[in-house]
């Protein structure tokens, strides 16, 4: 009786929902362990914040669904000569508050990105000058030919000039002024989503922007909640209170794979993990050993042979990583497919150490963060036991990132053995040479993250040449050759390329990019 009564009712429900489906409001409930630190697109240069804001603000160019660089606020561009670029801006674009987008907004945003309080000055480091040719055309002149200007411009978000000036946000947030930073908690971009409400650390609501110029998926509302505790985060996904969790803690992959109505989505991330060794001090620090063993190439090779990266991937990373042969992953321009990794072999490692004059190994201290990378603390513990097999005694200092980074970065570089990683934000290996692999030259902004202090002048020369070569094929060859030289010199011991792992409800379609971007306009709720 009950059945016969319910059947027509449920049919009616299905019908009515089918009828309203196209116009239905689709809410995507998103959760992550971190939150955007600010809504100002030129203030905090932190990857989660940048990618969160890329849904609200847009740049001249952006990555499309397939990760190719494509025009966003710039409709097209041409090069007048080796250093002059002309960008034709997109017509009919409006900001969330309704005002029209034009060249003065671009010029204003570039000024703003270069101002004293900005953390995005590096984006325009290669730029000599820029000007508005007319209302819808902008010209950029670089100091020298810059083959990756478009990659650099990916991170330059465009604000509305009138809005920013009217609200006292003409410059990025100044941390020492007493004024309230309007742009930290309010946003007005041209992106597919606008900010409805924002309570940092609690909840942020975005709504699809009606006047968006481009295509967007069917998501009309995004509710973003930071959930710091990993167990709570996963429970929220399992109980259906959130639709998408990024990233998913590795230890919970099996639980989500077995769970009903939820799935694991993963792909390779552009972050390469590596072990660094002091190659610039005459005496390594925090170690009883005399002198610096790492100055001997054979010792560096021995360490590379002794660290079983595959075992770390299988055990510590639960298979969610791929072996790294070099210091960038395959989707980064300049990746050298011919390079191989020094094989895991304890005997080879031991004989290399003996040749170098350390038959019984030596003792050293390793610095490691515990809350920055996926399972970083455990990777270091595994390294300690792997190195013990060749007689190297490692005293591990596993510390929170708040203690780790001040210790190891410029100007002190206070470590002689450490775990670190790098993501080239431009997806071009030149970025890695300028920051991590290039011979340290802090005045000129090179090698600020070259904590190992390694130096291969030939590779420096190749990278410098690649920086001004416009011919893409020739340039790529230079970068590949430079990478080969660095790997041969064992500047660092490459470990693995981390996987990007998200947990999602079955009905959510997502697009993953190797840079952790989450372009919500490509996401769909089915």
């Amino acid at each position, binding site marked *: 009786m009950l059945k016969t009564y319910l059947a027509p009712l449920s049919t009616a429900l299905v019908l009515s929902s089918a009828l309203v489906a196209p116009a239905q409001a689709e809410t995507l409930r998103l959760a992550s362990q971190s939150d955007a630190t600010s809504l*100002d697109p030129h203030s905090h240069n932190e990857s989660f914040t940048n990618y969160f804001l890329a849904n609200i603000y847009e740049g001249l160019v952006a990555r499309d669904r397939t990760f190719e660089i494509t025009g966003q606020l710039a409709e097209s561009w041409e090069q007048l000569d080796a250093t002059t670029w002309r960008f034709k801006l997109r017509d009919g674009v409006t900001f969330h508050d309704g005002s029209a987008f034009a060249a003065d907004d671009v010029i204003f945003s570039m000024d703003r990105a270069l101002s004293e309080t900005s953390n995005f000055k590096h984006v325009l480091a290669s730029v000599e000058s820029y000007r508005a040719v007319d209302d819808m055309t902008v010209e950029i002149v670089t100091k020298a030919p810059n083959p990756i200007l478009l990659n650099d411009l990916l991170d330059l978000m465009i604000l509305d000039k009138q809005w920013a000036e009217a609200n006292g946000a003409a410059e990025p947030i100044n941390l020492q002024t007493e004024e309230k930073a309007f742009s930290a908690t309010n946003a007005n971009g041209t992106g597919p989503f606008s900010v409805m409400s924002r309570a940092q650390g609690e*909840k942020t609501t975005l709504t699809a922007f009606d006047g968006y110029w481009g295509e967007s998926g069917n998501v009309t509302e995004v509710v973003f909640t930071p959930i710091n505790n990993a*167990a709570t985060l996963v429970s929220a996904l399992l109980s259906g209170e959130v639709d998408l969790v990024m990233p998913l803690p590795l230890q919970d992959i099996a639980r989500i794979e077995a769970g009903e109505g939820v799935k694991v989505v993963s792909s390779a991330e552009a972050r390469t993990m590596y072990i660094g060794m002091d190659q610039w001090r005459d005496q390594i620090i925090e170690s009883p050993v005399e002198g610096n063993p790492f100055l001997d190439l054979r010792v560096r090779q021995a360490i590379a042979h002794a660290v079983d990266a595959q075992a770390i991937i299988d055990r510590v990373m639960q298979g969610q990583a791929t072996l790294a042969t070099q210091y960038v992953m395959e989707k980064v321009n300049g990746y050298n497919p011919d390079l191989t990794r020094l094989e895991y072999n304890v005997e080879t490692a031991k004989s290399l150490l003996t040749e170098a004059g350390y038959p019984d190994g030596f003792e050293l201290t390793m610095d490691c963060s515990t809350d920055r990378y996926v399972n970083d603390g455990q990777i270091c513990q595994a390294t300690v036991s792997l190195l013990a097999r060749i007689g190297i005694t490692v005293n591990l200092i596993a510390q*929170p990132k708040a203690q780790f980074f001040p210790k190891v970065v*410029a100007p002190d570089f206070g470590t002689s053995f450490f775990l670190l990683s790098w993501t080239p934000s431009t997806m071009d290996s030149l970025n890695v040479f300028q920051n991590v692999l290039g011979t340290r030259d802090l005045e000129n902004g090179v090698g600020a993250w070259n904590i190992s202090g390694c130096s291969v002048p030939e590779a420096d020369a190749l990278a410098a040449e690649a920086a001004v070569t416009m011919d893409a094929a020739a340039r790529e060859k230079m970068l590949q050759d430079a990478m080969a030289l660095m790997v041969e010199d064992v500047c660092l011991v490459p470990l693995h390329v981390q996987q990007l792992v998200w947990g999602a409800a079955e009905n959510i379609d997502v697009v993953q990019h190797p840079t952790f971007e989450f372009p919500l306009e490509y996401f769909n709720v089915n």
Partner: protein
Amino acid sequence: MYFLLARLFQATVVMLCVALVGFLVFQFVGDPVLSLVGQETTVEDREALRESLGLNDPILVQYARYVMNAVQGDFGISYSFNRDVSEMIADRLPATVELVLLSGVFSLLLAIPAGIYTGIRRKGGIAQTIMTISIIGVSIPSFLLGILLILVFSVWLNWLPSFGRGDLATVFGLRSSLFTWNGLSHALMPAAVLCLFQLGVILRLIRAEMLEVLRTDYIRFAWARGLPGKRVYFGHALKNTLVPVVTAVGLQLSSLFAFSIITELVFQWPGMGSLLLHAIGQSDIPLLAAYLIFVGLVFTISNLIVDGVYVLIDPRIRHGAL
């Protein structure tokens, strides 16, 4: 009046000490500049920011500057939120107050009768059961209990939301999530976790005090006089157990305020505790300092209140006999 002034002076000294200890500890929480800037920022830019934030000054100079501003009601601007610290605390405080009120009221309502009952009938089956439950409440860590509750009530049964604070409503000018069903359903589990621990502590204290008092001579004398049980237990025994109990309750409730951190973390409750965790992660010194001072303030005030309550419940204090 003199009493009050003396207490206020003591409180000020306590808070200055709290802030000083805090500042000495802050040297080890890490470098706030590194959590503010990106990986591509040059060394000079980082150094300039550090200088302009005053982080290169000696720690005592930073402390003095901080106290001078704090006296004028200015707690600075949070490095990581870019907002007034006092405003941030005002934002987060109501959420924590809700949890403290809910769990505090429930634990008192349950602990007082249960404590008296177990004190009087300490051999009975019900009393034994209550005591067992209270041991569980005191000994299970709150994060474990929280996760268990989430697993059972959110993941398996799907009855209660697992995280966050619910919808707000305004009643008599007060804005709180306790006025909506949705809000109450969010607050139930975190409040229960906090309540269970408080319950165990207060209940056991009341029971122990009751047992102590029931052995004293004046209770025996009361029985000898043939007074009815109700008057002996409630009129004579209970009243005399209250002084230590009030002290403990005052401290317990203020520690709920200050240290509901783990519970707030597990349930992603947007209160003071989760704010503190964020501040530690980001080395946000202005926020940390203000939090410490706030905690000092809560304890000082609750102690002042407890002192006042003593006078009300114990005539000997009022008449200077003690």
